[in-house]
C-alpha cells in the first residue's frame, strides 16, 4: 500500500499546470463616464429660455443612449472574441 502511494506521488510529480493568462479586455475610457443628471430650467416666463434646456437634455439623452449602445456593442463583440479562443 505504501509503495502504491509512493508510486502515485512520484507519477504525479509529472503533472504541472500550464496557465495561459487572458487579460480582461479594456474599454474606451469615455464609456466609463457616468451620464450626468438632466439640466433644470431656470425660473422664467419666456419659452425661448426654456427651450435651450430642453434641447440640451435631448442631446444629453442621445449621448447616454449612444454610450449604452456602445456598451452592448462592446460586450457582444468582446464575447465573440473571447469565445473564439476557447
Amino acid at each position, binding site marked *: 500500500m505504501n509503495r502504491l502511494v509512493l508510486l502515485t506521488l512520484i507519477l504525479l510529480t*509529472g503533472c504541472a499546470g500550464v496557465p495561459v493568462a487572458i487579460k480582461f479586455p479594456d474599454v474606451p475610457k469615455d464609456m466609463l463616464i457616468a451620464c450626468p443628471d438632466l439640466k433644470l430650467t431656470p425660473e422664467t416666463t419666456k419659452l425661448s429660455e426654456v427651450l435651450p434646456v430642453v434641447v440640451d437634455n435631448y*442631446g444629453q439623452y442621445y449621448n447616454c443612449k*449612444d454610450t449604452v449602445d456602445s456598451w452592448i456593442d462592446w460586450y457582444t463583440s468582446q464575447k465573440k472574441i*473571447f469565445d*473564439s479562443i476557447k
Partner: protein
Amino acid sequence: MGQIQWVFSLIPDAVLNWMYWAIIAVGTTGMFAGWFAKFIPVYGRYLQYVKPIGIVLVILGVWLRGGYDTEMAWRAKVEEAQAKVAKAEQASQQLNTKLDQERKKKAVVRKEYITTVRDRIVKETQIIDAECKVAPAAISILNDAARNSVKKGTVTIEEVTK
C-alpha cells in the same frame, strides 16, 4: 517541483532529449552487461551492482523520455493557446479603437446638430416669445420630471407579498 522544472527548462530541448536517450542506453548496456557478466570471471564480481543499476537507469530513462514527450506536447499546446490569446487581444484592441473613433464622430455630429438647433432658437426668439408666456407651474413640472427620482443608494426593496 517548479524549481526543478525551471532548471530543466534552461537546458536546450535537444540536449535534454540526448541526455535521456543516453541514460536509457547506459541503463540497457548495464542491464545486458549484467546478464553477460557472469561469463566473464573478473567482471562477474560487479554483477550484483551492474544489473540493478542498469534496470533502474532504464526505468528512469524511459520515465524521463516519456515526460519529455509530454512536456513537448504541452509546450506546443501552450504556444498555440498563447498565439490565440495574442490574436484575440489584438482583435479586442482594434475593436476598441474602431468603437472609440465611431463614438467621437457621433459626438461631433451631435454637438453640431444641437448647436444648429440652439441657433434656431436664438434666431426665432421674438416669434417664440411673442404669443407664449410660460406659467411658473409649467417650469416646476418640467424640473420635477427632469430630476432623478431614484438616486444612487436610495432604492429600497419591499417584501414581496402574494
